């Protein structure tokens, strides 16, 4: 398993490195149209061909990967912090606070994730600038994705609250926020780390779903969702197999993220 984890790290670093070098590898950018080569098959100039409006698919894949790989971890960080704050404080304070926080968590969990996402996404204006749409999409993922992690963290904090070292700290006169920040929160690090890594592939897949449904990142900015939307017009797999490259890359990246955290128990231990 350790070897697979190493492979996963190498793959992720490679994909992240290549996508960060998008400006060098595809200097023309993701929006440049090659009007003489609309919907062209792969050539030396366009490795993955061009899309229906003549944009280089390889360049769009590089820039789209960069957006997903940079913003999904950012959203995961936001959701993990929210989960730590809500779940951690609820578990630490206990009583009515814990019950209220868990009721709120139950409310969020009682709604299927995609329903919740499209409902909230629909409340925002849909015709916004592309950059704003990217931020709104990933911000929503971060803000709405805390509930299951909060439940885990609440339970972990409740266990910690009753741990011997916390009781000893209390007996030594450490109370309130100092006890939480110095003794409880650092011990939640393994659980926070696990939740952070678990959230990244979930958010990447959620963005892809939203993008395919037309509720994700706005054109002309590319993302995995908008790149996969191209599969919508296909008639058969054999006709244009290069259109599947973004999907294959997505599977590789998501698998790698899951392999990085292939044994959550080990991490949490």
């Amino acid at each position, binding site marked *: 398993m350790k070897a697979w984890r190493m492979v996963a790290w190498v793959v992720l670093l490679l994909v992240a490195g290549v996508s960060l070098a998008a400006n060098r590898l595809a200097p023309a950018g993701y929006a440049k149209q090659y009007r003489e080569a609309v919907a062209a098959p792969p050539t030396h100039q366009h490795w993955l061909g061009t899309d229906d409006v003549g944009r280089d698919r390889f360049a769009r894949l590089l820039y789209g990967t960069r957006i997903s790989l940079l913003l999904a971890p950012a959203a995961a960080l936001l959701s993990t912090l929210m989960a730590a704050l809500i779940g951690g404080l609820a578990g630490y304070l206990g009583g009515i606070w814990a019950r209220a926080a868990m009721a709120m968590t139950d409310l969020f969990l009682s709604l299927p994730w995609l329903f919740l996402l*499209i409902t909230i996404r629909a409340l925002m204006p849909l015709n916004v600038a592309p950059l704003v749409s990217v931020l709104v999409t990933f911000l929503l993922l971060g803000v709405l994705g805390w509930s299951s992690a909060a439940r885990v963290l609440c339970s972990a904090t409740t266990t910690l609250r009753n741990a011997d070292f916390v009781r000893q700290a209390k007996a030594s006169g450490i109370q309130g926020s100092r006890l939480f920040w110095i003794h409880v929160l650092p011990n939640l690090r393994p659980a926070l780390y696990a939740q952070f890594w678990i959230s990244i592939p979930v958010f990447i897949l959620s963005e892809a779903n939203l993008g395919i449904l037309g509720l994700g990142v706005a054109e002309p900015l590319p993302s995995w969702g908008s790149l996969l939307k191209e599969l919508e017009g296909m008639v058969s797999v054999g006709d244009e197999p290069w259109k599947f490259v973004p*999907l294959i890359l997505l599977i590789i990246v998501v698998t790698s993220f899951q392999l990085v955290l292939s044994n959550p128990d080990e991490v949490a231990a």
Partner: protein
Amino acid sequence: MLGRKLARHGLAIIAMALLGGFLAATLVRLAPGFNTDEAQLDPRLNSASVQALKQVRADQSNIFRFYAHSLRRALRGDLGVSLSLGQPVNDLLRERIPLTLRLVGMGLLLSWAAVMALALSAARLRISAYDGLATTLSGTLVCLPAAVLALLSVLWNVPGALAIGLIIFPRDYRYTRNLLAKAYTRPHVLAARARGLGEGRILFWHIIPVAAPQILAVAGVSVSLALGATIPVEALCGLAGVGQLAWQAALSRDLPLLVNITILVTLVTLLANSGADLIGSMWRGQS
């Protein structure tokens, strides 16, 4: 005892649905552009009509009054009118619910048939190659966005229910396989096998009763997953169900329709989870 449990679950569901409805109404009220109504720009309207439209919006500006009004209307069975489709929400839901129920039901059936067959054989046989193959299959499926599976089902002309089944399968398989594998390693199962009990008897007398409550809980959660999967499957496969309606409502910012669908889905999810919990606890009580 059972009656009290049922009452408690029922009250929790009602409270959660009311709270969810209030939150949804709050979000709708706070959404950008709530106070603007394109109908007010219609040049054919006279000033009195425009004033009347403005008055309607003003009445809704107080969130508590807005929610109380919506709730009163909902209790009378009136869920309002869809802004984008111009039809009563009741009619839209009545037309589309049967298709979604069929799709979700078939999807769950297909998924659970595959989950139980693969998980039971993987847990029972304990052949690492077979287990690895099943895990790889579920691992690959879990890495595919639900919308891609829906697109592939269109491309390969397979029914939408199969796409829903494939979306749910990997999530359920992992838990179920682990539960069954754990049950097979329990000391009393090993003792039963050592005494020469048949595999069928071990399965139905010693494995299923132990793992059933937790598998039922997973089954309850899978209803929520299946409902979520209806959005991409119905939207991309062109199936006129509730999922497609939710997607259309989201694209056209038809908030009354979207909020009603959201509450409906929340209720179904809560009922499924509570039902699974109740059956699980009854099972535990019997065994």
